[in-house]
């Protein structure tokens, strides 16, 4: 049980790290540094982290190119927004006991995530029969289909599928911009995804990425693991969508979920390193903050991204972090000259 003991310590250290981050947010908040603009960027970072991490499961670990992740985010965003709106109306009408905003948000979030997961299943079963470029194109197609359908749904601000007119924005969505709750949701999501990767599931999908035929010869039901990962990933895209929908603007527009949005997340994953959760988190934060800092050059953002991507492909094709995972525990152990007992297995993300 040596691994477990090591793991428990590592978990405690990580928890401490998270608390420290929380404390920083708290301090910044009490010092009045968190105006609504900074809050907006913070929430932006949080959902980008969840999106990039969940996309990394499919792109990095499973090794399948998926270009429709914004579609699942849209499903999560609209579902959760409609659910919280309905709950709000029901409470107003007195047909439902009063619930706190937080409770409403979580109900919406869960509904959004489950809806996105269902769409993941619907898309994943046919799409994952393909691979490589074909899968990329079909996921891109599905992502757009989801968006265009939403754009026309009468209850999501559209004018009905038969009319074919561009719809309006969905308005009057509840605000949920409590930093601590968003932060906590993000941490929990990323932790769950890391746990997934460091279990038989992660091992199996990495094996499938490495060699499909050998995986089935080793007894893996490859289709099962592929679809499962796709659904799992869509679930978290739904969570991110819910955070996005309630970020405080009160509106949702179908144009928020175009193909370009999916590309943003693909860029985060590729830049960070396919198969590195650390990479996804770091680049998601970076690429959410940078555009704000470089507002003046906003027009050249996509141009800059493409240049960075091309340079990256030439000089560091594995991404910033490759498959490296940061571990606070390992860092501390090194700093204090105490060798962790299972250094190599910890480095490999083994349990």
């Amino acid at each position, binding site marked *: *049980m040596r*691994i*477990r003991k090591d793991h428990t310590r590592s978990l405690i250290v990580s928890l401490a790290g998270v608390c420290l981050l929380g404390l920083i947010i708290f301090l910044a908040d009490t010092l009045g540094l968190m105006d609504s603009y900074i809050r907006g960027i913070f929430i932006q970072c949080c959902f980008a982290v969840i999106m990039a991490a969940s996309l990394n499961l499919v792109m990095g670990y499973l090794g399948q190119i998926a270009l429709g992740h914004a579609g699942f985010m849209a499903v999560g965003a609209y579902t959760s927004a409609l659910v919280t709106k309905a709950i709000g109306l029901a409470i107003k009408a007195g047909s439902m006991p009063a619930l706190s905003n937080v409770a409403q948000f979580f109900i919406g979030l869960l509904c959004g995530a489950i809806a996105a997961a269902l769409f993941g299943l619907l898309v994943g079963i046919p799409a994952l029969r393909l691979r490589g470029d074909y899968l990329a194109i079909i996921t891109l197609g599905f992502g757009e289909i989801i968006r265009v359908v939403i754009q026309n749904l009468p209850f999501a601000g559209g004018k009905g599928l038969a009319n074919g007119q561009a719809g309006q924005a969905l308005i009057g969505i509840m605000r949920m911009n409590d930093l601590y709750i968003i932060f906590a949701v993000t941490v929990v999501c990323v932790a*769950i995804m890391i*746990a*997934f990767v460091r*279990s*038989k*599931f992660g*091992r*199996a999908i*990495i*094996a499938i990425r*490495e*060699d499909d*035929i*050998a*995986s*089935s*010869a*080793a*007894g*893996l*039901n*490859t289709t099962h693991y592929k679809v*499962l990962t796709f659904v*799992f990933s869509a679930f978290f895209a739904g969570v991110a969508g819910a955070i996005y929908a309630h970020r405080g603007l009160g509106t949702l527009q179908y144009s928020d979920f175009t193909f370009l949005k999916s590309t943003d997340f693909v860029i985060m994953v590729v830049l960070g390193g396919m198969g590195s959760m650390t990479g996804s988190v770091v680049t998601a934060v970076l690429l959410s903050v940078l555009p704000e800092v470089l507002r003046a050059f906003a027009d050249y953002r996509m141009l800059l991204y493409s240049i960075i991507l091309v340079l990256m492909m030439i000089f560091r094709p594995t991404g910033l972090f490759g*498959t490296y995972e940061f571990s606070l525990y390992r860092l501390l152990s090194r700093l204090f000259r105490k060798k962790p007992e299972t250094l*190599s*297995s910890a480095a*490999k993300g*083994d*349990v």
Partner: protein
Amino acid sequence: MAESVLKATNLGISFGGLRAVHDFEIDLKEGELVGLIGPNGAGKTTVFNLFTGVYKPTEGAFYLDGKLMNGKKTHEIVAAGIARTFQNIRLFKKMTVMENVLIAFTKDIQYGLPGAVFRSGGFWREEAEIREKAMELLTVFNLQDKADWNAGNLPYGQQRKLEIARALATKARMLLLDEPAAGMNPTETAELLACINTIRRKFAITILLIEHDMSLVMNICERIVVIDYGEIIAQGLPEEISHDPKVIAAYLGE
């Protein structure tokens, strides 16, 4: 008479008009080691692909322990007890030696998604268990010191061994080895021979072996089946085969 483990009757597959394998019959008894030989392109690997569900037979049938295996998917066949290695080694090169073996245990792991995500007691118990089992298996192949290596960094001979270890980890009763000695030098081949003998003793496993290295085949196989153009042209004891005029004709031309 020992029990029949793998049995094929009139097994065959056609790709369009091409009959790649035709009327293939074999009956492997428990614990036997049978060689499958034939000139290049004779259909040996196709036979393996049929037995592992990569191709679905278009004629005939094959049975494992008397159970019909036709049309089953690869992973179902592995679960039933047939495992294989590949002619061109297929390891998970960027995973560790240990992880390569762990993958083969995956199908027996009970914990599900909730167990993995919330790190249940079962998760820890099972993960520890399969690590222990994998280590035992690696020890048999003398790979225990390299458990943390990336599989792709192992020397060639050890990669072959690891592939066999992974196949055995599926708890197979029937092992199909596709040219295990290909590309090996004489020392490595001798080591492999010893290794195959050890696993036969230790795991009481039935083996079907494709091989071009005649000295290896003649040395360890109890029976030999020769195919050419997808059909069996001879079978019998090694000495008989080496004097069979049809076999000589197939290999040397008439």
